[in-house]
């Protein structure tokens, strides 16, 4: 209505309208979960379930935009009509087949439905307006009571584990909240503090805007609340293309101790003395070393310090301890699969295996890509590349860019940008580059290569190499979700 018909809305009225639509015509959590990556602004490889949907809709936009909606058959039809009205060229791009040339026979197909008609049929059947899930959820919908302290466990690609706490207090309405969070990056000890304002839509879908002292602020956060109101998970994100983020899990802090995890994701067997910090909330400050149990093969040598949110111990690992995952146990409280024990790094992989960056920096923003080198051990079965392989966490690798040969005399690697020692790829500037053949842009496709020489006792370990594909491409001139750019 605002865009098409010029409706003028005050921000508060708009918020109320969105709330009403979410609470009365929204999705059930079961329906929202498969599409929540859209709300999290997360890059995923979408699995398009239907060939017609792929050729009709996802040529232009992602599947997440579709599966986060439910409509009647008539409304799906009206939506396709709106597309044709607003963007007429879609008729020839995927909605309708080209007619055969005059004098030629019709296409040898048995189904003569147009793709757009087939897509509407598919949506009407797969994503109808009224579903048993929504009816069940709507009948018992609550405004969740979320005030209190929440333990934050997170992971930020490139910076590693993040632990902290968020305090949620009541806002102006029963589904609005104020927050104050403090985060610690375990790898370098840096801290961030932010305050935020949040709205919970549909009884479970958390949207928050946070501001603080960090250079990237303000940031946004999308979380999904569990049915029992004890946990939320989602993503905090920022950047011109929302390419930076922290994967977060929040757990409600009650009276019992909660264990987030340890600062080290893995311990090497044979290491006689390693300092290990265990993070959490309500941790027992009077705990003794004998009450910290990390499983067979790991000996707690001594207790270094103990506070309510961090217990530090000195541990030794038996040289014959088998490869595997260990739990952290503090008295009768346990965090399963929290630490891996390994004898050596068997291989590394780059995450993500396929990256995307966009040139920019002069007129339009850059779209960065963060890579990480993740170390793996072969796991209990002794075979590499199997499902029980142990993720040993990110390692400090040496990064380089190599050519991905997509044509003769390919020279993309000299122009697309650079990667720093932390795996952050910064794309080059946009615009025609007179130094390139035909004044090509600084776009291209390259290999990102990570090299690691594992340390530790074994000198026989050779350099491990992994590589990922990176596509460096053009800016987007239309920004459909521009809030971070307009701040």
């Amino acid at each position, binding site marked *: 209505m605002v*865009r098409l018909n010029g409706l003028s809305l005050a921000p508060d009225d708009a918020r109320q309208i969105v709330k009403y639509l979410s609470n009365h015509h929204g999705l059930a959590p079961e329906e929202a979960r498969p599409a929540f*990556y859209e709300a999290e602004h*997360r*890059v*995923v*490889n*979408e699995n398009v379930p239907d060939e017609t949907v*792929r050729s009709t809709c996802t*040529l*232009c*936009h992602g599947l*997440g935009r579709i599966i986060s909606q439910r409509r009647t058959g008539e409304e799906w039809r009206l939506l396709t009509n709106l597309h044709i009205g*607003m*963007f*007429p*060229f*879609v008729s020839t*791009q995927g909605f309708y087949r080209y007619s055969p040339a005059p004098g030629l026979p019709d296409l040898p197909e048995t189904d003569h439905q147009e793709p757009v008609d087939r897509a509407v049929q598919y949506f009407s059947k797969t994503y109808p307006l009224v579903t048993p899930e929504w009816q069940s959820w709507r009948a018992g919908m609550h405004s969740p009571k979320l005030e209190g302290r929440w333990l934050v466990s997170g992971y930020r690609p490139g910076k590693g584990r993040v632990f902290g706490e968020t305090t949620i207090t009541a806002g102006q309405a029963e589904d609005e909240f104020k927050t104050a969070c403090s985060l610690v990056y375990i790898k370098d000890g840096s801290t961030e503090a932010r305050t935020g304002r949040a709205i919970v839509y549909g009884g479970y879908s958390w949207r928050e805007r946070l501001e603080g002292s960090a250079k990237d602020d303000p940031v946004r956060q999308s979380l999904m609340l569990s049915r029992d109101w004890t946990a939320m998970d989602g993503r905090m994100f920022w950047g011109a293309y929302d390419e930076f983020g922290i994967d977060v899990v929040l757990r409600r802090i009650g009276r019992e101790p909660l264990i987030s995890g340890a600062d080290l994701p893995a311990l090497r067997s044979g290491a006689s003395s390693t300092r290990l910090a265990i993070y959490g909330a309500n941790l027992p400050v009077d705990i003794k070393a004998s009450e910290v149990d990390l499983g067979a093969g790991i000996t707690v040598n001594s207790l270094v310090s103990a506070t309510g949110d961090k217990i530090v111990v000195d541990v030794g690992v038996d040289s014959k301890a088998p490869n595997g995952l260990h739990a952290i146990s503090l008295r009768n409280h346990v965090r399963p699969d929290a630490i891996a024990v390994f004898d050596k790094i068997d291989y590394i*992989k780059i995450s993500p*295996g*396929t*990256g*995307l960056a966009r040139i920019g920096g*002069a*007129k*339009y923003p850059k779209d960065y890509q963060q890579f990480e080198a993740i170390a793996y051990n072969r796991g209990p079965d002794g075979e590499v590349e199997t499902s029980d392989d142990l993720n040993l966490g990110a390692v400090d690798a040496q990064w380089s860019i190599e050519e*991905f*040969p*997509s*044509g*003769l005399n390919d020279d*993309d690697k000299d122009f697309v940008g650079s990667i720093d020692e932390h795996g952050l790829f910064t794309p080059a500037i*946009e*615009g*025609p580059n007179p130094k390139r053949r*035909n*004044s*090509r*842009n600084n*776009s*291209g*496709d390259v*290999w990102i290569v990570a090299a690691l020489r594992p340390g530790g006792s074994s000198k026989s370990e050779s350099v491990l190499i*992994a*590589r*990922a*594909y990176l*596509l*460096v*491409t*053009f*800016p*987007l*001139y*239309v*920004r*459909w979700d*521009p809030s971070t*750019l*307009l701040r």
Partner: protein
Amino acid sequence: MKHLTPINRKARLIEEVIISQEEDVCALSIQQPKPKLGPHYPLGCTLVFTPGWETDAAGSTAGLCQPVERDLHDCYLSCYWPVQVPDHLTNYPDWSSKCANATKDWRNIDLVFP
């Protein structure tokens, strides 16, 4: 290829291409010989048009209109990229009015926030 060593530039290029199609990571441009894995499509990528916005029909950048600014007016006037580029017909009739020659004046083109 394990028993052959390239001795000139052309042979090395051939080897690079073969290695790029056999190694662990499945790149966008590789549709074969790993059809089960398939290319990884980053979210928002538009790959199927000829060319696509991010990649060409083969999944690479080699076949894209280059530089993109040279093709920008045509994209705009033909409304070919309604998600990536403003369209002239319906929504943004004045988008490129400050830009007579996109390859020179591309800095005059603003982003659009629908």
